[in-house]
């Protein structure tokens, strides 16, 4: 406990966190603009008739044309974060707006969006505007040092993401069947040079699987040690650029590349700041002489913030293991799959058709999913039990309100996982309209006909 208290008191240079803040803000702002320009606000949040919600967050819905406003607020707050202008307000706004956006539609769940959400939450409590920020100009003071734990917290979060992603790869499909890379890589046949050669090689699929697993497990440690840091960063750049070439993973690789810079020494970050300043001075004449430089930044409310951050990390460390509380194969049932850094881990496809039955007469008809869902929603719904249940209720309500009586919603669902033949996924004799969503095991998911060993 004493060691912990001493640790909490330790100070370090404020530059790395400031550079991180700038990089984070700029990338998030760009990410929002990119999302907007692709037309995804419309196609993902406005076009669908119905949105898949997270359990307990059904009240988070797009708000029509005003949804654009949420994105505008989110993008602007990211810019403010980058500038370090009204930082605390900006990062709180960013966290709330970004998280609201992600909660509106479960179909677009991505681990890296979740990462952004929790990272921005953590950043609310960090003095990322202590130096190199517009706030310094306004308040006429800057701080040279900040508590060391504030930078370590970000390193720890990055470390958890990598390490848990690595743990998740320790499974028999990934390591001993090279699945799903064996499916994904050969389809990249039109890449120059390697498309028709390496991508088609069996040994290469295994090499990629194993090195991917080792990379994820080791990279946090290689980044921590000064001697291996440069090598590790080269690996980070290579790995993320390579995966960006192979897969449509958007901004994530760049977020990670810029994010891992925080592992470098303060000297490096001071050079980065100096470099940006010389560029800025060409365009702006900022008088920095009136700014007081204060040696150490004191965090207010530490009695509240420290326990909060500790709780936050405890949850982060435990949450990915919640799948152990559920019976059945995790990849199959996906109970406890999300929010656990299981990234690019499986190739799963399904076909799920819904049967609306009049339970008195036995008369039935099938639903054309295209009448209610966008193709992206239908694709995601087809193999994820919680989606199937939520959609079943939507259909049940819809047809009941249309005047159908004694509505029962049954489902015929087939799913293929990692190149195995498709098999029945949901018990077709269960009326899903009578099943309630909860954190309990969904007994109507049929057992997986195979076994995948490992984490």
């Amino acid at each position, binding site marked *: 406990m004493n060691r912990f208290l001493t640790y909490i008191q330790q100070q370090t240079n404020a530059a790395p966190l400031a550079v991180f803040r700038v990089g984070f803000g700029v990338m998030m702002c760009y990410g929002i603009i990119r999302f907007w320009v692709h037309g995804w606000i419309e196609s993902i949040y406005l076009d669908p008739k119905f949105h898949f919600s997270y359990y307990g967050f059904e009240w988070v819905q797009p708000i029509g044309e005003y949804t654009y406003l949420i994105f505008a607020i989110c993008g602007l707050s990211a810019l403010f974060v980058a500038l370090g202008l009204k930082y605390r307000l900006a990062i709180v706004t960013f966290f709330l707006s970004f998280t609201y956006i992600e909660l509106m539609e479960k179909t677009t769940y991505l681990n890296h969006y979740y990462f952004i959400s929790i990272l921005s939450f953590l950043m609310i409590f960090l003095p990322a505007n202590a130096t190199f920020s517009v706030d310094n100009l306004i308040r006429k003071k800057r701080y040279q040092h900040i508590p060391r734990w504030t930078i370590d917290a970000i390193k720890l979060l990055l470390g958890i993401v990598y390490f848990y992603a690595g743990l998740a790869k320790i499974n028999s499909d990934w390591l001993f069947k090279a699945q799903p890379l064996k499916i994904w890589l050969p389809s990249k*046949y039109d890449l120059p040079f390697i498309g028709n050669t390496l991508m088609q090689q069996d040994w290469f699929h295994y090499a990629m699987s194993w090195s991917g697993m080792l990379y994820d497990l080791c990279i946090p440690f290689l980044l921590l040690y000064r001697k291996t840091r440069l090598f590790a960063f080269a690996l980070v750049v290579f790995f993320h650029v390579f995966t960006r070439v192979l897969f449509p993973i958007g901004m994530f690789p760049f977020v990670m590349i810029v994010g891992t810079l925080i592992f470098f020494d303060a000297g490096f970050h001071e050079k980065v700041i100096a470099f940006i300043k010389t560029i800025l001075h060409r365009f702006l004449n900022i008088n920095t002489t009136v700014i007081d430089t204060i040696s150490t930044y004191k965090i207010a409310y530490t009695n509240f913030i420290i326990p909060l951050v500790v709780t936050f990390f405890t949850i982060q460390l435990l949450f990915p293991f919640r799948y152990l509380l559920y019976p059945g194969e995790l990849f199959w049932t996906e109970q406890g799959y999300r929010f656990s850094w299981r990234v690019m881990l499986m190739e799963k496809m399904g076909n799920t058709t819904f049967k609306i039955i009049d339970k008195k007469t036995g008369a039935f008809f099938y639903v054309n999913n295209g009448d209610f869902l966008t193709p992206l929603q239908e694709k995601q719904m087809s193999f994820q039990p919680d989606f199937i249940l939520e959609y079943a209720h939507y259909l049940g309500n819809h047809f009941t309100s249309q005047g159908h009586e004694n509505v029962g919603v049954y489902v015929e669902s087939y799913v293929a996982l990692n190149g195995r033949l498709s098999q029945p996924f949901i018990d077709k004799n269960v009326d899903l309209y009578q099943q309630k969503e909860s954190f309990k095991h969904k007994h109507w998911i049929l057992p997986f006909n195979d076994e995948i060993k490992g984490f």
Partner: protein
Amino acid sequence: MKKIFSVLVLTLFIVACSSSDDTPTTPNGGESFDRAGMLRNLADNLIIPAYQDLSTKLNALGTSKDNFVATPNQTNLDALRSDWLTAYKAWQHVEMFNIGKAEEILYHFQMNIYPVSTTDVENNIANGNYDLTHPNNNDAVGFPALDYMLYGIAATDVDIIEKYDTNADASKYKNYLSDLIDQMKLLTQEVVSDWTTVYRDIFVAGTSNTATSAANKFVNDFIFYYEKGLRANKIGIPAGNFSTTPLPEKVEAFYNQEVSKELAIEALNAVQNVFNGTQFGGSATGESFKTYLTFLDRVELATMINNQFNTARGKIQELNANFYTQVNTDNTKMTQAYDALQAGVILLKVDMLQAFNISVDYVDADGD
């Protein structure tokens, strides 16, 4: 570091020992599948010949139509009907090729949208002023409109002939009949000539794994046709699989009353030929989805798909020649045929698509 590595190695060792049955296989010698070869086979041996065949048969239909219009009598009506059926069957072999010029000019919407709207047809005839290419007329043109014009406009053959002969509006009926067939010929000719002049090479070159490449679009179109054009339109919808009650009047060639099964079988054969890369009108096979699956070491899946096609064909064979009659007498058999086709959808849409790992054309968003 050392500790972590030793824990790691130990873990891996344990996992390795406990899954000895997962023997990896090497499906190929390191070369990727010859997609250009597959597209070449599809274009040269299936698609273009099928379109040319349809074009020839529509020309024959045009000739017999000219004869009938000149001399409306039973002999000429019979010849016209026979050529209509021949062309309709030829159509079943191209309906899934909604790509290139066909897609661009909305060819498919002007050839076989059924059920036909008899109100629209009669209004067009009465007005004598119509744009057959207009989307509002999609259900008043093509084979289904001809079905009505040749079998449905009156109760008996004598009365039908009367419409084109002595009826006050005979010339209007003749004009509409003529315009329908001429338009079908024109559209088909446009598609055929595009394939034979420019599109063939574009198609064959479209091997990349992108949402808009010919290879990916073709796979998606093929599955879409099987699911919608064949499974739903021909069997599922009339059988009432998508409605509270059966809708027997929605069968293909409703007015003819005896060929809906023949057309469905023809369509299923066409699907299976594309899957196996069997050349049009022949038995030689080339690169295809089947050989692609074989290349990916998924022979068992290719066999399952062929078996499922055969099962579905068996179920359809058991049906009445007229699905309208079948739905009204014993709809269970219809839904059984539907179920057999649906099982094929799973194999194509889930298993085959996963094996090909096709970038689907409709999903545009980041992945994880």
